[in-house]
């Protein structure tokens, strides 16, 4: 049942990402909590969403270019992490999150390849629409547009649960066998957070961006230390 839920959520996210609406619901910051909520672990999704969003902030579809499919990657990572956390009885910990990203993150790159294949496939829909119009069926011709959402749905609905199943199986095995890895992987999570923020800042390509990034980080640290000291 869990994998069916993952399939539906990942499929809908694939449609929302490009074919319909594009209202940020398939962005990692929203999708990871949605997957977490659907699988009964909202805090786990909320832990994963922010760093994944910052990492993939630059993943945008400009012109005919194809970015990594961050929605597919996020669905697999979040679902795999939540299911692994459930199997371990710990929920999504930083260690689980790091391993999930390591195992399923590259699915986003595979998603780029499947996106390209889908765009090639859609050429047939456009050609069929022209034929239908020649035959005097304009309503059927324009309806071909809607059929273009089927393949992204199916591809993501198949790939995301499959990758999540691998993640959910491997992570508990690793962390049960090597429990001492939990603390070092927590450091890996801290490093990932730093890199994600840097990747986000780079994605903005602002001329003053690096200075603003450094200044904001310094002010946040100073305020945090001050408040921590007061507390």
């Amino acid at each position, binding site marked *: 049942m869990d994998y069916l839920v993952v399939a539906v959520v990942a499929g809908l996210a694939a449609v929302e990402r490009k074919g319909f609406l594009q209202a940020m619901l398939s962005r990692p910051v929203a999708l990871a909590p949605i997957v977490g909520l659907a699988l009964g672990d909202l805090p786990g999704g909320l832990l994963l969403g922010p760093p994944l969003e910052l990492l993939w902030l630059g993943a945008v579809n400009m012109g005919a270019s194809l970015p990594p499919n961050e929605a597919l990657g996020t669905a697999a990572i979040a679902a795999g992490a939540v299911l692994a956390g459930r199997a371990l009885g710990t929920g999504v910990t*930083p260690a689980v999150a790091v391993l999930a990203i390591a195992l399923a993150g590259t699915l986003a790159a595979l998603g780029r390849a499947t996106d390209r294949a889908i765009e090639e496939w859609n050429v047939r829909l456009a050609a069929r629409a022209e034929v239908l119009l020649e035959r005097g069926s304009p309503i059927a011709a324009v309806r071909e547009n809607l059929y273009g959402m089927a393949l992204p749905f199916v591809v993501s609905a198949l790939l995301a649960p499959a990758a999540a199943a691998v993640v959910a199986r491997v992570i508990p095995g690793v962390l049960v066998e090597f429990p001492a890895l939990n603390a070092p992987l927590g450091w890996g999570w*801290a490093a990932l957070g730093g*890199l994600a*923020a840097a990747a986000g800042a780079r994605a903005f390509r602002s001329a003053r961006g690096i200075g603003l990034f*450094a200044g904001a980080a310094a002010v946040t640290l100073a305020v945090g230390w001050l408040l921590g000291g007061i507390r």
Partner: protein
Amino acid sequence: MSVPPMTLRRVFWRCLFLQAAWNRRGMQNLGFAYAIDPALRRLYADPGKRNEALRRHLATFNCHPYTAAAIVGGAIHHEERVAAGEEPPGAPLAYKQVLQGPLAAVGDSFFWAGLRPFFGAMAAVGTLALGWPALVAALLLYNALHLWLRWTLFRAGYRAGDDVVVRLASLSLPTWAARLRDGGAVLCGVAAGAGALSAAGRLSAGAGVLAILVAAAGIVVLGLRARLFPTVYAAMAMGTATGAVTQLLRGGR
């Protein structure tokens, strides 16, 4: 004859499906034809003329999915004149061809490189600081703003036709895009600082220092056009290795 408001709303709804069948040959052509079809049905009672109009909208088209709403509106503006015999049938196509490039550039620069990543960073920082209510608020705000802009552009295109460029210029989107990019960089800096503080609180001060050092290294390495995911693996591996060494030095505690 003009297109009734109800039909215009239907066309706008269909604009949300503009990229449903994005393809390598005609790009958004099928989506454009799907979106404008209800208006063409209203304008051309003769099936032959309607099919002819639909055929011209199956020509290659590509634009930013949000700003394309202005072109759909403007194409209806021109189709009304074609239907009334005031313009040649090629006018809507010429209008689309002239505007699709500039509006794509404006849309990519403002929405994809400015507004959406800004709200993505805002949602991320908000979630880190305040949890799901901040996430929901950021998403609601983004969508209220983006849907309002899409509708405004569609209406401006329909009412102004060729003058939509003037209306668009009045919105000063490039200026706003630059501000949003600066604001986004600030939010990422806040995320870096907050992440370091969180790591310091959760693990040790050393983990906080590590997070900041990785953020600084990330800025440099990604600025040298390093690929993202190999860099992610390197950062996670380095962080984990540092954690393991620290654990060993502390006697396995």
